[in-house]
């Protein structure tokens, strides 16, 4: 089955997850091979997600763990789990 651009957009996220059937994967890749726009869309979305994944390493505010521990110690000493 030939997919049009709208179908590609709908499958894009699942495709990036590797969560499409073999058939859909082939269709997406066949479409992308001849559609400049969808190829670009797929590429750039993927690239942005690479950048987003990098956010995972964002630094915690300095002293975050110490302050959390202190707060928990204080509150936990007052009352236990209900």
């Amino acid at each position, binding site marked *: 089955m030939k997919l049009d651009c*709208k179908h590609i*957009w*709908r499958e*894009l*996220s*699942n*495709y*990036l*997850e*590797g*969560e499409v059937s073999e058939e859909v*994967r082939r269709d997406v*890749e066949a479409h992308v091979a001849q559609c*400049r*726009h969808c*190829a*670009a*869309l*797929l*590429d*750039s*979305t*993927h*690239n*942005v*997600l*690479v*950048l*987003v*994944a*990098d*956010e*995972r*390493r*964002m*630094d*915690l*505010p*300095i*002293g*975050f*763990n110490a*302050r*959390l*521990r202190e*707060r*928990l110690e204080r*509150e*936990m*000493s007052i*009352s*236990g*789990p*209900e």
Partner: protein
Amino acid sequence: MVEQASSGTNGRSASAEGVGRFAGAKVSGCIVTLQPPPNLLGMSGSVSTMVDQQGAKKEKEYRLIDSVLAGNREDFHELIAPYRRGVYLTAYDVLQIEADAEDVAQEAFLKAFRALRSFRRESQFSTWLFRIAINEARMKLRKRREVPLETLFPDDDSENSDYTPMMLKDWREIPSEALLNEETRRLVRESIAQLPEKYREVLTLRDVNGKNIAETSEILGISIGNTKVRLLRARLMLRDIFVERTQRKPKQQTPRGVSP
């Protein structure tokens, strides 16, 4: 100003690692091209090893929970240690203000401690914990009474409605050097901040924190189908915002300290 990431490397210059998470990403010329289907989960090793590891982790968590409930409150620190960063990041992505995110993270852990007895062990501890964190973050946001951004984008997650990505002339261009600099990190943060709340939530859980679809849907309390649709929207919108912001930048590098 900041506490280092858990690894020994500088947390802010580890883009190469970030790219490595997607086995398919390759920098070629000015364009980062997509190789055959990248696995966003970045999993390696056999499924059975993974299941074993998860089982062991779960057992350890249950032991710690029992211990805390038996009165060893100290053990709560160990129980939550693996999630401090993720909970903070999630709160930060929703709230976009460091101090608020820290407050919310503290509140969430405290709430989890107080409600620990009600954790039913039907879902993972982390799923339960992140649900508490998301709810705390939402409450904080309500209090701030932000002007809703939802109006900027279609607010319809039904399976039949499509989000149409922008058609920009040059949209393929996200220069590879952009992947490596501080300016880009700022642009990514700002672009995430510009997403409507519910899209920020799904994106931070799945794409920043690496939760899988099932966990994400459980944390958000929405169906798997709905999670996928929302995630697709979030990703396309983010791409649009990011590309638009990148192209707004002048080609020439501006001197340090001077904003473009």
